[in-house]
């Protein structure tokens, strides 16, 4: 996939030494795949994540087949210690936090690749475009 191109460019410029996928990568791929202008693709990608956020705000979970699901988890109130102030006990109020649970297929794909590269010690990444 020539999706490595912008990443390499960034690496050369020393912007991001680590391999990181950002919104710009998603925008680029969406523009190409859906035949949209960069600008349209940008608002589309924004809309995807905004959609996920709004749904979570409504207290609704989101399930994306083959990828995973996003939901809200509640953390109860707990007693914690302030590590800076010699362990003074403080009450942490209950919280609601967003949580992502990887889907079965994604987990399988991750571990297939891990096993394959461990057993063959060939650095090639199997084609994962299918599915």
């Amino acid at each position, binding site marked *: 996939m020539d999706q490595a191109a912008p990443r390499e460019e960034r690496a050369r410029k020393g912007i991001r030494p*680590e391999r990181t996928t*950002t919104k710009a990568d998603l925008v680029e791929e969406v523009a190409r795949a859906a035949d949209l202008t960069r600008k349209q693709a940008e*608002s589309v990608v924004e809309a*995807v994540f905004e959609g*996920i956020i709004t749904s979570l705000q409504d207290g609704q979970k989101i399930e994306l087949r083959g*990828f995973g699901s996003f939901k809200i988890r509640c953390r109860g109130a707990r007693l914690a210690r302030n590590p800076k102030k010699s362990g003074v006990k403080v009450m942490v109020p209950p919280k609601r936090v967003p949580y992502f649970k990887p889907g079965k297929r994604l987990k399988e794909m991750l571990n297939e690749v891990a096993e394959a590269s461990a057993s063959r010690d060939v650095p090639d990444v199997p084609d994962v475009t299918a599915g």
Partner: protein
Amino acid sequence: MIKNDLVNRVMSGAGVPRASAVIAVETVIDVMRQSLVRGDRIELRGFGVFLVKNRKRGIGRNPKRPQEEVEIPPGLTIRFKPGKELRDMILESPPELPAAAD
């Protein structure tokens, strides 16, 4: 909410035809999946970060039959770290629902 609902939101939110919205949602998911499978991290400003992490072998328990040990094999998992914006938005949203513990 499922993929189809997300497509509808993208359609109205970005003002693109349905066909484009479908391809867009699929592409976003696909690109993200490919990145994670390659072991890359995904950083989305305002939303969060997805990281691929190693999981050690462990012993899990079936909550229904706690006396039985279930082995959790070592492998890779994904950690999602919600971004500040997302965390704040969730905290601010009305907590009417105790968000089912599923």
